């Protein structure tokens, strides 16, 4: 509950996302706009999920007891569904916008769908991570003792790592999802939805952070590898990139290598 915890957890949770933003998105105004629109779509999906949960609670008259826990679980699952629905809607919007931009500006290259997939995934991820973690983070600046009632003293650290993995997962899901929509591979969409449900469901066993976090990270690594191959990477290009021999493979606007 000191500044060290605050800054440490903040950078654990948001460091990679900030780095991705600074190096890939902040330079291009159009990408920033698409990122913010993506964040907005996630926000609207959250609004609808909260509305659903709120209505469910009012219907059951706010009785305390196990029913509240079940309602919460239902709320979480419905929220995941609504998020993926809004991801699909964002895909549709981007498709229309791309076509519009192309018809008006035939010479100027509009951002490709893959890039938009990455940007939208990052938008969803950043908004999701921020909403999940920022209140906890601001509480960590104040006085208090963590785990005084027998909870885990690693509460902040675990939340930070969980937030990080959620952000990265959203990025990968975005890439896979959009690619599935482009190639009409509906199985990809289904897998994204199922893994999202799985990750959320894993958090239900929440006091046992170890299993929760480790399995979520494994899922993230798998999703990451899939997204890498979906986005056009290959073992060869990875090797060239790591050995800094990839001049021939770089895109036009990355010739600085």
């Amino acid at each position, binding site marked *: 509950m000191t500044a060290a915890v605050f800054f440490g957890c903040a950078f654990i949770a948001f460091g990679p996302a900030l780095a991705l933003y600074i190096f890939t998105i902040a330079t291009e105004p159009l990408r920033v706009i698409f990122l913010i629109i993506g964040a907005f779509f996630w926000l609207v999906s959250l609004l609808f999920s909260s509305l659903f949960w*709120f209505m469910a609670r009012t219907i059951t008259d706010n009785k305390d007891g196990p029913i509240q826990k079940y309602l919460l679980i239902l709320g979480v699952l419905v929220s995941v569904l609504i998020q993926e629905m809004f991801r699909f809607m964002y895909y549709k919007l981007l498709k229309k916008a791309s076509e519009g931009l192309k018809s008006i500006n035939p010479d100027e290259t509009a951002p490709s769908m893959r890039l938009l997939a990455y940007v939208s995934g990052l938008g969803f991820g950043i908004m999701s991570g921020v909403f999940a973690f920022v209140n906890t983070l601001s509480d960590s600046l104040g006085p208090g003792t963590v785990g005084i009632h027998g909870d885990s003293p690693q509460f902040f650290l675990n939340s930070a790592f969980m937030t990080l993995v959620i952000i990265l997962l959203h990025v990968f899901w975005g890439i896979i999802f959009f690619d599935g929509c482009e190639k009409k591979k509906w199985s990809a969409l289904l897998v994204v939805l199922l893994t999202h449900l799985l990750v959320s469901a894993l958090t239900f066993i929440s006091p046992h952070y170890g299993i929760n976090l480790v399995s979520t990270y494994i899922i993230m690594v798998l999703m990451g590898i899939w997204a890498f191959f979906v986005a056009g990477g290959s073992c060869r290009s990875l090797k060239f990139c790591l050995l800094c021999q990839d001049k021939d493979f770089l895109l036009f606007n990355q010739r600085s290598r």
Partner: protein
Amino acid sequence: MIFPSRDFKVLSGFSSDLEARGVLCSPEPGTPQGRAMLTFMASDSEEEVCDERTSLMSAESPPPRCCQEARQGLEDGENAAQWRSQDSEEDLDDADRYVCSGVPGQPLGLEEELTLKYGAKHVIMLFVPVTLCMIVVVATIKSVRFYTEKNGQLIYTPFTEDTPSVGQRLLNSVLNTLIMISVIVAMTIFLVVLYKYRCYKFIHGWLIMSSLMLLFLFTYIYLGEVLKTYNVAMDYPTLFLTVWNFGAVGMVCIHWKGPLVLQQAYLIMISALMALVFIKYLPEWSAWVILGAISVYDLVAVLCPKGPLRMLVETAQERNEPIFPALIYSSAMVWTVGMAKLDPSSQGALQLPYDPEMEDSYDSFGEPSYPEVFEPPLPGSPEGELEEEEERGVKLGLGDFIFYSVLVGKAAATGSGDWNTTLACFVAILIGLCLTLLLLAVFKKALPALPISITFGLIFYFSTDNLVRPFMDTLASHQLYI
């Protein structure tokens, strides 16, 4: 007021050359042909001959400053109490809330392409200052307790909200709003009258008075409160020096000449100060109702044929008058194209000394595509004194900054320490701004900048505070992630 500025600045002799290249704006009714429109990027004194006419002003260069200054004048005449000036400032910005667009006389295809090509850049050029202003306001609200304490109300909101019943409170807030809005309407009409009768000195005087008050008095109070919060001692000589330097440089930058970045920074700071004063002195429910009512008024005043702001705009257009830069945030970029032999003697000396600075400061945005839009100069261009500069930038009225920041600041102040509400309002306002600029590109005429953003902001504030917050709190306490 938002308007993208797309001036093509040409020395009068060479307009025909450029017209041949399809680059110069062809004359439009109301725009004198071959007029050298020098746009000053940095703050300029009003005595400049070359105006800051942004070429789209077939539309709208509302001289909101006139409104505001007039109002200030009136209020200053009544009382010198500190919270008056904030009202005058509020009125100031009131007239600023336009979104103007349209380039008079450019060939349509080129204009559309240019609109869309540079549209994203304009949006970001607005996002950054709006975000900065909001960050300053939210940071202050969250740390300095002075601005969330209730210490009285403005004279324009006389009805108290400490009433026993909800209905009474609602009634009081509506009455407060009615009073505030009618004051604003009266001031605007007074301003239109003043402007029609060309009382410029009057207007300038009031503008300077109000900037003085903002830059010195409000800064002093703000600094005092920040020092109190962090328990830092500062002796009076140091304080005097600091405030004096800050205020004096601010006055020079805003009303006269100064580096563009510094002017922008000062405008952001005074908008933040105004917004903080509003957040402090407007009672809760009144603030929300006022925000809603201001958006409606903005919509009506800009779009209705007999709206005062529209009439103001048309009068300004008829006279081809410059817009006072002190109340407009200008994010201009200057690209010197062609045989850019900068010859200071051939132009007004104001513009050029700042060109390198501006080009430097916007180098980082350098899009390689910009120079390619324009052909290399024709061989027929004589003397190497041809200088064609294109200013691409956006101008946003300070009123927009202020009301956006009031909304986000109120969300930060009144929530139960909830950051989610603040962030949701922030994103909503940015999206509203995006949509407004999109509409601007589509309709190409004066549009008010407040309604869409404020509507989104209000919707998201109330829904996040009442629906999302309990959901996220419950999730966070059980450590569930969606």
